[in-house]
């Protein structure tokens, strides 16, 4: 386990997930030849009962193909190299999904794509706008960001209908590490509880994004006296009032919401607003659209680890 990269781990979960069905389909461009999407497609054709298809470059119609399979009770996975390719399929993702979500669907249809966040891809291949997809599809969008969130995503994806999974390009080559931190699982989030005293709730970060490396770095540098707990969103939703998760978050003295998505609308804003309505002060860090986004450039997040830490330390 210790040597697995995120790519290897997600690939393993795909093979586990589809191995349990008698018949299923995995399709996408170059998924069982060439680089196999940097290894995400490794050995998928060896899964019992799976039909693997190296497809044409026809995203919109292929998305319809997935919905047609779902209508016919055949589970499927559309493995997509880049998030922005899914823009070509918005008709199927919205219109077809809106129509069939109320049908008697029996099979899941998973769309798994890579968020191109490693930089230098240019303005058209650096989409990181999951909020819009979650809003348009009104279907679950999962961050494949840690072992725990990956487990949660594939656990939920057994349910019939569309599931969208997003994996960070930066994250793909990183090694997975099993965390020893105490965790608590909610349906849309994993709480990493760093605070050792069970009765103390000083600072919490709620993180929305496909690559939590920045937050992981921050937390590794915090000493035990000033612990920070992390609510890592596994699913892109605004946290509902009166849920166990909301009630857990409300216990904290200071809350920081961090969102690394490049959308102009944010479910994280709604979460912060709902906490504010309860009289809880929340500091929000979100990305700000700028001219770099329209050029070939480094994918530089507009706020820094140091800025966040400075704010957190002030709250103690």
């Amino acid at each position, binding site marked *: 386990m210790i040597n697995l990269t995120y790519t290897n781990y997600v690939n393993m979960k795909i093979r586990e997930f589809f191995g349990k069905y008698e*018949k299923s*389909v995995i399709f996408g461009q170059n998924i069982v030849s060439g680089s196999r999407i940097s290894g995400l497609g490794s050995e998928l054709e060896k899964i019992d009962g799976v*039909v693997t*298809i190296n*497809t*044409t470059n*026809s995203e*919109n*119609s*292929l*998305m*319809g*193909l*997935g*919905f*047609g*399979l*779902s*209508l*016919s*009770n*055949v589970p*499927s996975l559309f493995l997509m190299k880049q998030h922005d390719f899914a823009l070509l399929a918005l*008709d*199927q993702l919205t*219109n*077809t999904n809106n*129509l*069939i979500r*109320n*049908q008697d669907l029996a099979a899941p249809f998973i769309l798994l794509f890579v968020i191109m966040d490693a930089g230098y891809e240019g303005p058209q291949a650096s989409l990181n706008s999951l909020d819009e997809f979650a809003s348009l599809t009104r279907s679950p969008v999962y961050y494949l960001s840690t072992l725990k969130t990956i487990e949660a995503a594939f656990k939920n994806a057994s349910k019939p209908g569309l599931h969208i999974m997003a994996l960070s390009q930066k994250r793909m080559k990183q090694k997975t590490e099993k965390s020893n931190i105490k965790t608590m699982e909610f349906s849309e989030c994993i709480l990493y509880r760093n605070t050792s005293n069970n009765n103390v709730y000083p600072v919490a970060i709620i993180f929305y994004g496909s690559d939590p490396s920045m937050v992981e770095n921050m937390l590794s540098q915090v000493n035990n006296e000033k612990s920070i707990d992390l609510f890592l969103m596994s699913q892109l939703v605004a946290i509902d009032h009166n849920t166990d998760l909301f009630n857990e978050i409300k216990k904290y003295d200071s809350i920081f919401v961090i969102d690394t998505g490049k959308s102009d609308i944010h479910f994280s804003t709604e979460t912060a607003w709902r906490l504010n309505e309860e009289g809880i002060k929340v500091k929000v860090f979100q990305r700000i659209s700028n001219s770099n986004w329209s050029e070939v450039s480094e994918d530089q997040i507009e706020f820094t680890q140091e800025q966040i830490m400075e704010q957190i330390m002030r709250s103690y």
Partner: protein
Amino acid sequence: MNQQLAIKLANKICELRSIQLEINRSIISGEFLIPIHLAIGHEALAVSVGEVLESEDKLLLTHRNIHYQLALNTTKDQLYSEYTLSQEGLAQGKLGSMNLMNPKKSNIYTSNILGNNLAVSLGIGLASKINSNQGVVWAVTGDGAIEEGTFYESILIASSLNLPIIFLIENNFWSLGTSITERRIPINLELLANSLSIEYLKLSENNPLEYYDKLFDTRKKSQQTSRPKIIEVEVHSLGGYLVNEDSGQGRYVNYHSGGIKFDPDLNNIFEHNFSDPVFVARNILSLDRK
């Protein structure tokens, strides 16, 4: 046998026209809140498809689906109730007209987005193949939708994956208020189909028995070879009307949706030639009486 089938189909064509004219009266009197696209002039193809359809087949329709619903033996009352969004309707009043589907009668998907159902038909065709089902998929579309990119994508994928799908293109030469000649160059569908190794067939003049025979043969070939087919069918959507242009000239506009006002000068609900399925049906029935 053929004569019996011809009479059955001819009677069904007349029944479809009659019910549509009743629905038309309700549209004109404002009984429906929803948009309805009649298919007066499209009946021959629909009744032939309804007759050829096997229980394992799947039918994917478009916003203009009333003729297929009736050909699948949906009653006038079920349609009327659906259009008034009543629980007694075919889809319990939840789908109205443009997305109306009837899964119990093979019609498992209907989309009002041009070309959208073609893509969905791919998955249904692939599932049918994987499950070794003996059925074929009928994906109905029109001459407007073949201008969408998804048409090309879908026929390419269907051919590449050897899927048993029959793409049925109702060509009425119009898209909303513009005719083909007003919006684009002609598309040689036969050439396009052949370039993708897909067999092409053209039907016209509304003979329901001829349509049945050709659809039957095409279905058999598609099912046996697991290959897609393209069938282009010339239809004349009746119900057109004249509008006064700014220039003062009258301009004929083809029917698209809503109620049809009968115009005796235009013969816009019945035509006395082979472009009207009811004319063809009446010929069959009068020959039978002789």
